[in-house]
Structure formats: C-alpha cells, structure tokens
C-alpha cells in the first residue's frame, strides 16, 4: 500500500472480530504513515452491515479523526440505511456519501485546499 493525500479503503465480505482488529490497525497505521488528508471507507462490498459493523465504522471514523484526517463512509445501500435507522444506530457524526466519487467531492469540500486525489486504492 502506498500513500497519497486521500485514501480509499474498500471493505469486502464479512467483518468478524479478528478482521476488525486488523482493519483498524491497518487503516490507522496507513493514515498515519501516508499523512492522508482524507479517507473513504467503501462498505458497498460488505455482506452484512448491522449495528456491530456500524459501531466499528463509527469507531474507525473517531480513530482516524484523532489522527487529524477526515473520513467519509460511502456505499451504504438503501436496505442497509433502513436497517441502521431501524436499529437506532447513532451515526450522526459520520460523514456519508453515495459513492466514492461523491465521497471524494465531500472530502475535498471539507478541506481548506482541494488539491488531493486518490493515489492508491487499497482493497481490503
């Protein structure tokens, strides 16, 4: 994995406790190592997005925020959005976008300067 100003993390398959830990470790270390200005997490490839996964995402956003990086979650599908609202998961503080492209625009706007682009796709 190589660094850029923005980072795209694509989550796929199934998230379990073990994988969650390594995802957290990898994302935080990559963000720190690359000094990324912003990070996108694409969840459209996840099999299940329930309250457990949602809490992980919220946690990731806070961790990355502590490193001074803005983060947006993209690719939440309609059914997933309904489920999360029904479960009452609080994701008020999380920036979201429809897809990676919209998410990039969102991140750019959130920053004072808007010069960054994706240097690398990290598929997880």
């Amino acid at each position, binding site marked *: 994995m190589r660094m850029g100003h923005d980072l795209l993390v694509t989550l796929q398959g199934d998230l379990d406790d073990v994988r969650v830990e390594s995802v957290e470790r990898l994302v935080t270390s990559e963000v720190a190592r690359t000094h990324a200005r912003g990070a996108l997490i694409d969840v459209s490839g996840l099999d299940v997005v329930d309250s457990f996964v949602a809490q992980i995402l919220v946690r990731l956003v806070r961790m990355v925020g502590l490193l001074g990086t803005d983060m947006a979650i993209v690719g939440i*599908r*309609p059914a*997933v*959005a309904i489920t999360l609202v029904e479960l009452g998961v609080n*994701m*008020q503080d999380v920036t*979201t*976008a*429809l897809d990676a492209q919209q998410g990039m625009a969102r991140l750019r*706007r959130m920053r004072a300067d808007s010069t960054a682009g994706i240097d690398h796709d990290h598929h997880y």
Partner: protein
Amino acid sequence: MADDTVVITEDLDSYYLQMMDSITDYAVIRLDSAGTVRSWHAGAQRLTQYTATEIIGRPVALFSTMADVATGLAEANLRAAALSGRQETEGWRLRKDGTQFWASVVLTAVRNRAEQVVGFGMVVRDLTALREQSLTLRGLEQLVNSIADFEVIRFDCDGLVRSWNPGAQKLTGYASEEVIGHHISMFYTEDDARSDLLDREMASADRDGSVEAEGWRIRKDGTRFWANIVLSPIRDDHHNVVGYVKVARDLTERREQDQLVQQQRDEILELSTPVIQVWDKVLILPLIGTLNSARAARLTESLLQRIAADQAEVVILDISGVPGIDSGVAQHLLETAEAARLMGTASILSGVRPDTAQSMVHLGIELGDLHSRASLKDALQLALRLVEARSGSGDGVRA
C-alpha cells in the same frame, strides 16, 4: 348326521349338551316339524330370557312381534325352510319381557332317511348393536356423499385411497373407481411428490392430531387448483394409526382475489408515494394525506431506491399536503431523513405551515439539523445551493 361324525366314543348326548351350553352368543334351538320348541340352552335363555321349562313345548311364534304374528311370518319361514332346506332372515323378535331385539335367524330343515322334514334347527343371533352401527355408518356415508363442495376422503397408512366422495370427484375430476387403491400422490405436483410432502404431512398429523395445509394440487385434466387441506389420523382402539381422513376444498378463486387485493394495495401505495426528480441530483417527495407506518416504510424504501438510481444529492420532503404532523409522523420523517443521510443525501423539509410549526414545537418535536423551509420555492433554492456547494465549487454550505 352321526354317520360321518368321527372319534367320539363317549356319551354323545352329554357331549352335545355340554357344547350347546358353552354357546352363549347364539341361541341354537331345535324345533319339531310343527315349529314347537324342543330344545333349549343357556345361550337361548340369555337372549330371550325364557327358561327351558317355560319354553319347551311352546310354538316358535312366541318370539314374533304382534305384527309378524298377524301376518303369520313364523309359519311362512318354516314353510320356506322346509321347501328350500334353509331360510335366512333378519327382523325384530320379542324377549320374554316384551323388549325387542334385531335378530338374524337361520332355519335349517332336518330330514329323515325318507326325506321327510322332521324338524328344524334354528340359530338366532342378536344383531341389534351391529344394526345400529351399520345404520350409523350408512348415515355417515350418506352425509359424506352429500358434501358436494368438499373433498372428504380416506386413505390408508401407505397413502392408498380407500374412500371417495362426490365432492372429491367434483374437485379433481376423477371418479371413485379411477382412484380407489391408487396412491394419493397422484394429485400432487411433481415437486411435492418428490419432496415426500405426504410423509411430512402424515407425520405432523400423527403428532398434532391434525394438520392444515395449503398448496397446489393437480386435477385429472392436468390443471392446478389451490387446495386447503385438513388431514387427520384415524386411530383404532389401541391408538394405532390405521389411516387418514382428508378434507380438502378449492381456494383458487379466493387466492386469486387475495392476490388481486394485495396487488391493488401495492399499486395504491406506489401511487401515494411518488418521487419526482425536479433538477439534476434533486428529488422531491410530495407527501399527501395521512402517514401511517406502512406508508412511511414504503415511502422511505422507494425514496432510497430513487436516491441510488438518480445519484441524488438533495431530497425535499414536502409536507404541505399532510393535514397534521404529530410526533409519530415527525418520527417517520426524521428516520427517512437519517436513512437518506446515511446514503450521503441531504434532506430539506418544506411546506411547513405556521400552525404546523407551532404544534411541532409544542409537541417537542426536535428536527435536529434537518433543514426546513416554509415554501417549496425556498426549499428548491436551498437545494440548488446545496448541490452547487457539494459539487466542490461552492461556498462551503454543509448539508
């Protein structure tokens, strides 16, 4: 009679007497050629209540009912037996106390070597209980046969059809001779037959006392019908399952009606939750009428799908057509907005009337950071500004 009887070397008379006394379920009586009772035994006494001394020497017509005495039935039977050698009848007979029993009577003529009738053997059996049973059975059979709109059939533990009724014929098109003895899976669809549906239904009927199911069945002409079926096991006195009764009816029409109603309901819901694209990346959801949970869920669903399809950035929830906003409706709106936000789309509430604004605040409805405008025009302007801002070139307005 004794000519070809074997082995008995002891006193023959005493042997027969003992044997006769041991018969208690039948009356076996010897009559002379005139029909006078000449022998008696315990079984005869049990049946008719007469003792030997009371009856021996009396005419057999003593057992006849008044009506039969009047027509001379006893004598007629004797004549018939004398003529043909054997006469078998059933009818009412009298006991000593005047009560009646339904008797099966077999008269056999006894002849001497000169072929003259010298007497009769009479075997009488009480069939009152059996007659009741068979009458009950016949009544049940007629009952089942009179049921034209229900299939009421019986099949054994191997699944072979044992009885058939007109309702079954009407339903399936098969006549009874075409199905009796055949396996009941002939009415099943291929998939059901292959998946051992019958075995599963029989097992749950055994367990629960009966089982109700619905499914497609096949008629003789190959067409399908939607059947409602109730299956109950038949048990013998020892509680063993000896077969099953199946009651079935045709619910095809009702099913089609149900489906039609459901389809119309869906269409109405569809019509009542239109999502309109008014501008690039801007959707309007005009809400009209009362908002219940079913409609709200439907509305959220169709809105989110349109957001995904149209890549919408902003959604305007227009409530000018909603008569009143209570906390339930507000909750639905907030949930819809939050679900849209999770997909990266900003929501704007529009059409809030002064009285609505008042009641919302009085009710303590908290809109959070949901944008709200009084008119659709203002909402649309805000929406366009938001889209512009989000596309990256704007003035930093955050959704």
